[in-house]
């Protein structure tokens, strides 16, 4: 996957969450993701970007267009923060588990909305969530 130019959005406040998902939708429209897939991607970004404002206060979302060997295009989203990290990732990915007073569907829900989902976290150093949504046609 060779990434094109990246779009970086600093996540400092709840309005940045809206900006991040709107920018992603524009990029997704450029590579002709279906309107439904744009909505799924935007919703997933909203969940992972909100985790930054809820748990880490600030971080960033990096968007890029990626291509696989078959020439299929997709949007990659990296949501990164230097916050407290997640002590138990397995648990954080379970439906209904929350340490932040929410519903506990943010991470497991976001995972269901995209094609690829990876999470890396080190306690007291930060969390990086990477999502990819592929376009369905070549």
């Amino acid at each position, binding site marked *: 996957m060779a990434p094109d130019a990246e779009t970086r959005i600093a996540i400092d406040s709840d309005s940045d969450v809206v900006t991040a*998902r709107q920018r992603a939708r524009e990029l997704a429209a450029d590579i002709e993701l279906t309107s439904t897939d744009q909505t799924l991607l935007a919703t997933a970004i909203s969940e992972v970007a909100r985790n930054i404002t809820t748990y880490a206060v600030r971080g960033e979302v990096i968007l890029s267009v990626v291509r696989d060997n078959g020439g299929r295009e997709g949007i990659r989203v990296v949501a990164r923060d230097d916050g407290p990290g997640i002590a138990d990732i397995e648990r954080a990915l379970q439906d209904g588990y929350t340490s932040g007073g929410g519903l506990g569907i943010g991470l497991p829900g976001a995972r269901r*909305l995209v094609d690829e989902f990876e999470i890396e976290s080190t306690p007291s150093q930060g969390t990086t969530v990477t999502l990819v949504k592929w376009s369905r046609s070549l």
Partner: protein
Amino acid sequence: MAVPILKQGPFLIASIQAALTDTDVLQLRDDVMSQVTRHRSRGIIVDVTALDVMDSFVSRSLRGIAMMTRLRGAKTVIVGIQPEVAFAMVQLGMNFEDVQTALDLEEGLALLQTQKEPGDGGS
């Protein structure tokens, strides 16, 4: 951006105009609750036609509004959830079962009117 809330007879109509930040959503909740109290409203319609994303925070907050207003004796109907948004909400795992919904504003108003208590209409 604040959500305008219009009074129409015994009902309130909150018409969301653009993407909402979390702060906007909490403001909407507070505004609806204070107006329901001020106008002794029997029903509230929240029109979400303009929302292209309803994530877990927005969904949970709208559900909260529906439950809080019910405790005040008023019924909330969420109208205008877009088809793609509905799809994303189901994939996300949002439980919206106990929230009343309708296709659009007109259907929402019709729903509230048919549910008025006998005697409300004057006779």
